[in-house]
């Protein structure tokens, strides 16, 4: 667990982070969102001691990070940045193996770990191991950036607008990867973004910040249903809010189990972990008003109807 306890960081008299207190649960994905200069990136850099707070305490698993050697702390925390920052003079394998080398892992273990991570990020080791950063596309570079951050199997990964510079399809693909990797590896991920859609789509919990202060810290559904104030309401997009709910809520939350007198649905089924937006799209393109719902293994679970999507 990461605890921030009345943390203050001032730049030129102005509080970049102004009395921030919140707990980030272990093994969850927490997104920080807010406009430029709201203190979200500063908060991230406080957690791995790239900057030091003027006041307050930051604890990781109960330990005050001010008492740790910064290098030791950082080698235990994955770090991904928007500009990626791959080492241009090292190939992909050497880039991914950076932190294990700093930690003096045996060579064979590092090599095995590099292959494992390339597989996890869906990059073919045979093709990519020996490539240099300048030979990769932006999306591939950031996949390597994420692999590098995960290399030493840290419990915590910090991501500072990691997909901000990527084109929308690549960004969506990588958001999917992050969800999948978080589900598979159960890391604690702290993800900073200025994009509310991204924050709502990825976060188990979303921290909305404004002028160095925490405005709301809640689940995406909660934020959409009960924005804490006008700032949050405006930030989540006023009139588009109900559409956003569709993108955030899952089919599993709205479906009815079979045999509950809901009738039958035929045709192509939708997975329970799909979003309501995907369900609506499928209904519209196939001209049906109900879809069968299946689980990840393809077992039939129940039914979702057009009417189930509408009540908020």
């Amino acid at each position, binding site marked *: 667990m990461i605890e921030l306890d009345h943390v203050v960081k001032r730049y030129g008299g102005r509080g970049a982070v102004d009395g921030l207190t919140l707990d980030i649960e272990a093994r969850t994905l927490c997104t920080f969102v807010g406009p430029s200069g709201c203190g979200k990136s500063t908060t991230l850099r406080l957690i791995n001691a790239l900057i030091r707070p003027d006041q307050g305490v930051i604890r990781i698993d109960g330990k005050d990070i001010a008492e740790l050697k910064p290098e030791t702390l950082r080698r235990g925390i994955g*770090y991904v940045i928007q500009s990626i920052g791959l080492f241009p003079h090292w190939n992909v394998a050497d880039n991914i193996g950076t932190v294990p080398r700093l930690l003096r892992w045996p060579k064979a273990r590092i090599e095995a770990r590099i292959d494992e991570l390339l597989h996890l990020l869906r990059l073919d080791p045979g093709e990519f191991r020996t490539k240099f950063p300048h030979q990769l596309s932006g999306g591939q570079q950031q996949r390597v950036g994420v692999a590098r951050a995960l290399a030493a199997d840290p419990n915590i990964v910090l991501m500072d607008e990691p997909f901000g510079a990527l084109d929308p399809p690549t960004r969506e693909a990588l958001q999917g990867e992050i969800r999948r990797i978080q589900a598979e590896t159960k890391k604690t991920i702290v993800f900073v973004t200025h994009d509310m859609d991204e924050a709502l789509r990825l976060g188990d919990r979303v921290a909305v910040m404004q002028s160095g202060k925490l405005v709301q810290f809640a689940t995406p559904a909660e934020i959409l249903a009960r924005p804490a104030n006008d700032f949050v309401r405006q930030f989540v997009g006023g009139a588009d809010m109900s559409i956003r709910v569709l993108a955030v809520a899952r089919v599993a939350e709205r479906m009815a189990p079979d045999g509950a007198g809901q009738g039958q649905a035929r045709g192509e089924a939708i997975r329970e972990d799909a979003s309501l937006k995907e369900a609506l799209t499928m209904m519209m393109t196939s001209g049906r008003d109900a879809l069968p719902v299946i689980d990840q293994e393809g077992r039939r679970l129940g039914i979702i109807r057009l009417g189930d999507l509408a009540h908020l």
Partner: protein
Amino acid sequence: MSPLTMALALALVALVLALPHLAPPMHWLFPQVERPVYERASFVELILSHLGLVLASSAAAALVGVSAGIFATRPSGLEFAPLINAIAAIGQTFPPVAVLAISVPLLGYGGPPTLVALAVYAALPITESTIAGLTAVSRDVKDAAEGLGFSRLRMLGDVELPLALPIILTGIRIAVIINIGTATIGSTIGALTLGSPIIEGLSASNPAYVLEGAVVVALLAIFVDRLFEDGVHWARQRSGASP
């Protein structure tokens, strides 16, 4: 080594070995000169002594220049950076001959003052290029390195210096090429260099000596320059700057 560099090396060796046997054609070129081939010292001896001076002074200059450049780009040395930069820039406006002249009253005549003068002068472009190279390392890469847990020393050795190497090498190249030329003037204060036949040829009105010394030193400078071209190319590839 590229084929061109290799060819230049062979041409240089061949010329130095052939010079003692070139009296007949030199006679034909300079009929008025009695002894047209420089014989006070062999050209092998001259080129080795010349190269010795250049290598020793450049090595010392590289050590001092790179250290000064590293110091000026560390947090503790940052406030000295403008001063160090100014010294390096202003120092290079002095002609190398002047530096050589200043060192005589301090160190006397012969090899040592030449060595010191060359080293001092060469340290300036190397310092300047080291500062430029280290400053040019991308902020993003350094940010990533710091965030991943590099210590300052490892960041310098594993990330900053390899990425700055092409620019640092460019500075060392300038220094070495200037030194090859300037070392010839060292013969005016008694050092044994490829300048010895030139100086003697000038004072004794023997254009054959001047030509021999000049051609060999020019060929040496071109060869070493090509050698650096190959080195910079290699360093650029390694730093991922070009495919």
